[in-house]
């Protein structure tokens, strides 16, 4: 079972705060981490390897410091890691990202399953997984919450939809995105940490992938960000005062006025 896990290094935005003076994200003290959703993808890859043998290759496209995320992936059980990094990859939208990843997957050769997180914490699109599957011309299943069985070149998985869950069968090789319900990621093992320190992580650039420079990064992106701004939170709410019973009474009055009760 050869598994490829795609992951992205993101700022750990859970603690993100806006500087009220400058209205920008405060980045000091915010570490870059593996996109939390991708940690479930990695863990599931490692579990598949433990069940069926084979190997797990972690792959990331990003700036040189994304190597840190890949080293962490090795400490968490990935056998190999590849960094796709080139100045020309910068500013990629989801299409250009998927195209770059697909080129790297093709260079890597044989695989059975590619696992991605359901979305990233920063970009939040969830589009790279499905776009990657089409570029590789393999099946795709989103929001997988359980891999039930893999046998005879077929996999059977559960995936979450709004109304409940579905059981889907797909032939290998296939691309899936996973949700956090699928597993509880392990902590790095001592052996893993030692291994990650000495792991050789190759860096593949535009010439290594043999891709057309106009198809990657900002140049290869069909979508373009034209404006970035901070949402205005109009804070004009009314906090009721006085004795609790009166406050509840006030609230009832407001809800009645709005025709809601």
């Amino acid at each position, binding site marked *: 079972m050869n598994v490829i896990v795609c992951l992205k290094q993101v700022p750990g935005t859970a603690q993100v705060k806006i500087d009220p003076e400058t209205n920008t994200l405060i980045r000091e003290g915010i570490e870059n981490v593996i996109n939390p959703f991708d940690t479930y993808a990695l863990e599931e890859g490692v579990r598949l390897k433990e069940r069926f043998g084979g190997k797990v290759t972690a792959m990331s496209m990003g700036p040189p410091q994304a190597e840190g995320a890949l080293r962490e992936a090795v400490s968490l059980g990935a056998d190999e890691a590849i960094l796709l990094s080139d100045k020309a990859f910068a*500013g990629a*939208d*989801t299409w250009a990202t*998927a195209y770059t990843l697909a080129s790297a997957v093709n260079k890597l050769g044989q695989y059975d399953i590619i696992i991605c997180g359901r979305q990233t914490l920063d970009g939040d699109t969830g*589009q790279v997984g499905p776009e990657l599957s089409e570029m590789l011309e393999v099946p795709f299943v989103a929001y997988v919450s359980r891999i039930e069985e893999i046998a005879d070149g077929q996999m059977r998985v559960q995936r979450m939809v709004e109304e409940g869950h579905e059981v889907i069968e797909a032939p290998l090789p296939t691309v899936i995105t996973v949700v956090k319900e699928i597993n509880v990621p392990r902590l790095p093992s001592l052996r893993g940490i030692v291994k990650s320190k000495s792991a050789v992580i190759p860096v593949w650039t535009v010439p290594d992938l043999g891709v057309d420079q106009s198809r990657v990064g*900002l140049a290869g992106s069909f979508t373009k960000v034209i404006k970035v701004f901070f949402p205005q939170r109009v804070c004009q*709410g009314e906090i*009721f005062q006085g004795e*609790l019973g009166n406050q509840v009474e006030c609230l009832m009055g407001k809800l009645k006025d709005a025709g809601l009760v």
Partner: protein
Amino acid sequence: MGIQIDLDKCVGCGDCVPVCPFGLLEIVDDKVQLKEGCTLCGACQEACGYEAILIEAVSEVEAVSDSHQGIWVFAEQRNGKLKGVAYELLAKGRELANTLQTDLSAVCFGHGIDEVNRLIAHGADKVYMVDSPDLAINQEDLYAQQLIELIRQHKPEIVLAGATSLGRAFIPRVAAILKTGLTADCTGLDIDTENRLLRQTRPTFGGNIMATIICQTKRPQMSTVRPRVFKKNEPDEKRKGQIIKVDFNRESITSKTKLLNFVEDLTETVKIEEADIIVSGGRGLGKAENFQLLRELASVMGAAVGASRAVVDEGWIPYSHQVGQTGKTVCPKLYIACGISGAVQHLAGMQTSDIIVAINDNPNAPIFEVATFGIVGDLFKVVPMLTEKLKNQ
């Protein structure tokens, strides 16, 4: 390719520093310096009054063909029933079509859907209806290929779909094959009339930052849109439109995946994505059993029960109740947040609700920043009082 700062032109005014959403610019020795991590968003370039910042893109010189006309809305259904987001998209689509002076079409795949006429009443000029028993259940492989075929044939300039689990899974595959841009999870859409471009606004960084995105060189321009962000129009039963039946050619389409079974989540009495009122609980409830308080309030109000991610992670209530960035986006008439502090990820999923009521004993909880009405107090006292008053009226 990339960003370049012309230090000869830079006067060190610092105007660019505060506009960088990622805080990557600083003034060192009266000149601007850029730290690692630039996404080439262009905010600084716009702010610089001295043309010292240059973002070079090898832009694809490809004229957009004028043959692409019209706006399409993918009208999602489940079990033969159209989803609310289909009507919401038609309302927005109608507005965009009027601005562009073009047609609005709905595209619907399914079997035996009797509400197809309603798509016209809600604003569509045309409905492309592909009806087949094969399409009764949501078969993403079939949907993707069928939609690609129709888009190639009719060449719309804009395609909108709901950012539901179906839409977010299969629309990117359509965009990948059509080699066109797709913007996920939009919360705002409008038209740059001068250039006939769709301006797509979406939250990123868990709702901390908004980005406006365009797709200049490719058609169609595609977006997925969060449910409950746009309001549906009142239906106009007198509206005239055309229903175009399209044959489904099963043989020409290959399906790689197979749906074996569907298990419905039965814990919900009222679905949160459709509810007018949501009573939502967070960690302040203390334990799973205390959700009973909220269920009682919800039942007298005819409301659905929502939850923060924290309590779903604790296992107090199933995931289908989760509101927020990784749960559901809701926009009810009334959202009552009980014991929810209001992390940005939660706010991202509910802050467009018409009226937000926050009940929390911590006056500094961020939920009060978005609340229309707030009660600073013990939810274990406030909620039963509210339930009691509602019962007695």
